[in-house]
């Protein structure tokens, strides 16, 4: 039996939640005070996901960095691989909000897109 300690981010309460896992399966969730905590904890221990936001190098525009994000959440374990691709990419202005900067980043199926316009 594996035990995982989490802080719920559902609300400012920040319940300390203990999840018991067996072979990757959630056996129990304790410490939460509402269903949000239960749901959060189950997702967080089985497939934690995050949106990654960063900048990429842009050339030929009025800015030297373009802010970007993963269009949706990606697995937490892929953050560092995702950042490697973001750090390496070089793109040319102009770019509009929503333009794809990296397709299928780190094999997640999720695109990295621009979050601002650079002319």
């Amino acid at each position, binding site marked *: 039996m594996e035990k995982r300690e989490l802080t719920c981010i559902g609300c*400012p309460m920040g319940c300390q939640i203990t999840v018991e896992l067996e072979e990757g399966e959630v056996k129990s969730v304790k410490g939460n005070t509402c269903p949000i905590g239960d749901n959060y904890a189950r997702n967080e221990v089985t497939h934690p996901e995050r949106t990654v936001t960063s900048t990429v190098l842009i050339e030929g525009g009025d800015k030297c960095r373009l802010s970007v994000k993963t269009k949706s959440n990606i697995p937490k374990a892929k953050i560092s691989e995702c*950042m490697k691709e973001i750090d390496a990419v070089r793109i040319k202005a102009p770019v509009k909000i929503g333009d794809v900067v990296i397709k299928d980043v780190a094999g997640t199926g999720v695109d990295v897109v621009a979050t601002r316009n650079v002319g």
Partner: protein
Amino acid sequence: MKNYDIVIVGGGPAGLAAAVAAKKAGNDSILILERDKELGGILNQCIHNGFGLHTFKEELTGPEYAYRFMEQVFDLNIEYKLNTMVMDISPEKVVTTMNREDGMVEYQAKAVILAMGCRERPRGALNIPGYRPAGIFSAGTAQRLVNIEGYMPGREVVILGSGDIGLIMARRMTLEGAKVKVVAELMPYSGGLKRNIVQCLDDFGIPLKLSHTVVDIEGKERVSAVTIAEVGPDMKPIPGTEERYTCDTLLLSCGLIPENELSKKAGVEMNMITSGPVVNESLETNVPGIFACGNVLHVHDLVDYVSEEAARAGENAAKYAAGQTAATSDKVIKLVATEGARYTVPSTIDVSRMEDLLTVRFRVGAVFKDSYVSVYFDDKQIMHNKKRIMAPGEMEQIILQKKKLEEAGDVQTITIKIEDK
């Protein structure tokens, strides 16, 4: 002198939302004055996500959120001036600006909306002892350097203060390859959102030390080490608890201060607690026709609330400029925050000018669990809402109904307090 109905000082989230609302309320003579080279204010450097859940029901990054409002400003053909500093606002609502192209220009406004935002508390104001080397940045300055200018302020970082910008920068610097060694927070609780503590610190194994502060900064040219120590209930460092961290950078995220230099020049009365203007139900200051909204009024944690508040200021300014504001009555109710509640915005309500529903925002002064927000009309309790948790870092609100106030008759004071039962 040029004339506008409404001059808005600041083109950040508050100024943009105020402008859009004023225009939609029917005013066609609006000018936004922005000192930076683009609209959007501080949101342009807040490239992380988490904005807009209330307003747009989706999670946006700062620049995306700003752009939603900028698009409306463009579509509605609202005038704005960039790279333009407001040098003075007079009580007569003459706004003096300066830029490279026009030099100094005066605008006579019927209504002025203060939307200048806030600034960060610097190291000097914190009285942190030690050397004064390079490598000490407020978190927002570091954020600008990394996100806009594309430079790394340092490689090994200690952060003082667990405000949201500090937490966000802990993650941001980590993702860019820096090592964030510790976040020290003077208070026994964090000033930041839970979600940021988990996703910006816990995700990267960055320790958060509550009730800790910086007691020494080493390094004559560039920061070389920072010593933190635990503080007692009196907030004074406890000898023997010092821990020294070698690092090249100290980021400070120790609070935001509304930027009211111009408001004061205009004769606007200030609230000592918020460091923002004292406003009435219409978000109007003591100077008739000068309104305030956003972080210049009181520091917010969610931009969604800034936009909403600013829209109200915009609508009220449009009404004022059109001469449609109801005359003030002599029946002005005072709002009092006490026993756990620190302040309220607004500070007064004139029932005759009040809308059907009025949002009153306030903050608590400590962490309260399973406590009640109680509202009294004079001595009579009229609201008693249980809250599982309230913290200084999270703005609270109640909604007052005009109908109830009218029914209550001659109310002198509305008191908000936190009660444990």
